[in-house]
């Protein structure tokens, strides 16, 4: 049975409240008096189509869900996230960014279904481990799963600068958005938007890579939560500790770090004694002279290591300390040389940047995929040209550029002109 005006108003009120918007804020958003919002919500005045589309975009809900027989706003990940993190909902800039991102992902999911790209898509694995009871367990879980994931993905021991692509190739929507400084990223999922990860584009490239790994961990462990915002102030939470531990271990595996150090002549001189059994009942012993020099890691070694793995100087220092390659005293001393380390990194970056191009390209990869999917949906006759134009405009493609693209898609005969249509 179709809903009436009163029910429509009531549903709009429930969505507004779930997003922590006041009636005044909605009035301002729509450019109408607050009394009109009151009337809409009480069913005495209908929302118009323009207002409805604006609300769906800014508050992040699917317009057609409003008219469903059973209205279940709690199924939606944005609502779940805002409920779990009221602070996010009250931050209008952040909540609108999340709403817009979820709209984009919803559109992507819809196009995926239209062109059949959802068939055969295997979602990333999920680790159903019990919630860690303490930080020690959290660190252990994060590290163990990072090793497993590296093995599963056949990543070896080297750097993974292409992590966003690795995550994306598993059907996850990955994006960059300018978020407030204390937020490194967020994870959001429901059946309409799929699995999504957002990372703060205002942070440095190294921090972004760490955040991708951190959010990827949430996706592997915490999918039941529907949404998690990773904030600096939550870093003591066990799920955050686990995600940080995962990110560090995933980006800088111990064996890879040791191989790197060995390659630059800074490995610990072990083993010093080798014995080979020779089936004659004896063993051949070979002894190497032990290095009398300490490891002697310098700031440039750490900067080089950090650059190689695409992580920050500080992250590399902490990782070396966790392997007991450096002491706390050495970590502190090296941390004070951050300026010099930064200068060295700049030299490496300027001359041998492997990451920069990838990052600037990656910023828009999701939109590129969205546009390709939309072109395919148009070619198959699943969406109209006007819808394609809307999607293209969202991906900053001009009408001229789109027309050039459409020239290559054979959906109609260019030789036949418009016929005359008149209603009978």
């Amino acid at each position: 049975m179709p809903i009436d005006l009163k029910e429509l108003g009531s549903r709009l009120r429930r969505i507004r409240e779930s997003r922590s918007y006041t009636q005044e804020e909605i009035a301002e958003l729509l450019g109408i008096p607050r009394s009109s919002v009151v009337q809409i919500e009480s069913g005495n005045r209908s929302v118009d189509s323009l207002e409805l589309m604006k609300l769906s975009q800014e508050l992040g809900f699917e317009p057609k869900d409003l008219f469903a027989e059973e209205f279940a706003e709690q199924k939606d990940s944005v609502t779940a996230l805002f409920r779990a993190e009221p602070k996010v909902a009250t931050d209008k800039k952040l909540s609108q960014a999340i709403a817009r991102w979820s709209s984009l992902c919803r559109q992507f999911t819809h196009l995926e279904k239209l062109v059949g790209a959802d068939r055969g898509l295997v979602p990333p694995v999920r680790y159903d481990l019990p919630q860690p009871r303490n930080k020690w367990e959290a660190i252990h879980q994060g590290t163990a799963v990072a090793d497993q994931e590296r093995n599963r993905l056949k990543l070896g021991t080297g750097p993974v600068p292409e992590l966003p692509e690795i995550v994306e190739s598993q059907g996850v929507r990955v994006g960059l958005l300018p978020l407030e400084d204390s937020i490194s990223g967020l994870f959001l999922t429901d059946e309409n938007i799929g699995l999504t990860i957002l990372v703060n584009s205002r942070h440095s490239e190294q921090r972004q890579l760490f955040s991708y790994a951190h959010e990827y961990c949430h996706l592997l462990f915490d999918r039941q939560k529907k949404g998690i915002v990773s904030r600096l102030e939550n870093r003591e939470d066990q799920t955050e500790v686990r995600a940080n531990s995962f990110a560090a271990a995933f980006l800088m595996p111990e064996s890879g770090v040791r191989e790197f150090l060995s390659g630059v002549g800074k490995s610990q001189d072990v083993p010093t004694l080798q014995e080979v059994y020779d089936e004659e009942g004896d063993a051949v012993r070979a002894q190497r002279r032990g290095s009398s020099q300490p490891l002697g890691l310098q700031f440039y070694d750490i900067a080089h290591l950090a650059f190689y793995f695409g992580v920050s100087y500080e992250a590399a220092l902490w990782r070396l300390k966790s392997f007991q390659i450096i002491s706390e005293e050495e970590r502190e001393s090296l941390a004070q040389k951050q300026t010099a380390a930064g200068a060295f990194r700049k030299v490496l970056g300027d001359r041998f940047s492997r990451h920069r191009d990838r990052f600037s390209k990656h910023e828009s990869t999701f939109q590129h995929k969205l546009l390709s999917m939309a072109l395919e949906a148009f070619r198959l006759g699943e969406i109209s040209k006007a819808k394609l134009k809307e999607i293209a405009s969202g991906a900053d493609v001009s009408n001229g550029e789109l027309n050039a693209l459409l020239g290559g898609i054979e959906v109609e005969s260019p030789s036949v002109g418009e016929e005359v249509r008149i209603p009978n």
Partner: protein
Amino acid sequence: MADQSNVLDVCTDTCVLINLAHVSRLDLLGQVEDLVFHAPQEVLEEVSEPVQMRKVEQAIESGVLHRLRIVAVEELESMAEYVEQFGKGESACLAVAIHRRWVVATDETKDRRLSREIASKAIKLINTPGILLKAIRQGRLSVQAADLIKAELEVNRFKMSFGSFQELV
């Protein structure tokens, strides 16, 4: 004067407005006797070129085009379904057409998705050449003037499948 019972309401999509604005002949919308043209707000928002926007505003002020606000729940519901596969302007036109049995004015009749929907819902159509032909038949426009409009639109990539309106009258 047209018999009011024969007057058809038309929900106009963006392409028709842009075509007529391009040749500065939006006035024709008011000259075709048995049709009353309406444009949903979504369509008006899709006219983004400032000069064309001004011309469309003038057409509304002079009463040849009527601004349409969609508020009926069943129309909103249809529109909410349509926006997943159609542009917002098209979605508004389709929603109004199926619930009010109005005619849709569009030049996107070769769009596969749109033509499929129009055919499956038996929606009546008119396009820019159709509006010009009606104006000729009602003595509001000469064949020569219509052919000049045709030539101007064809420069703007809107091709028509016939040589002259003379072949059709």
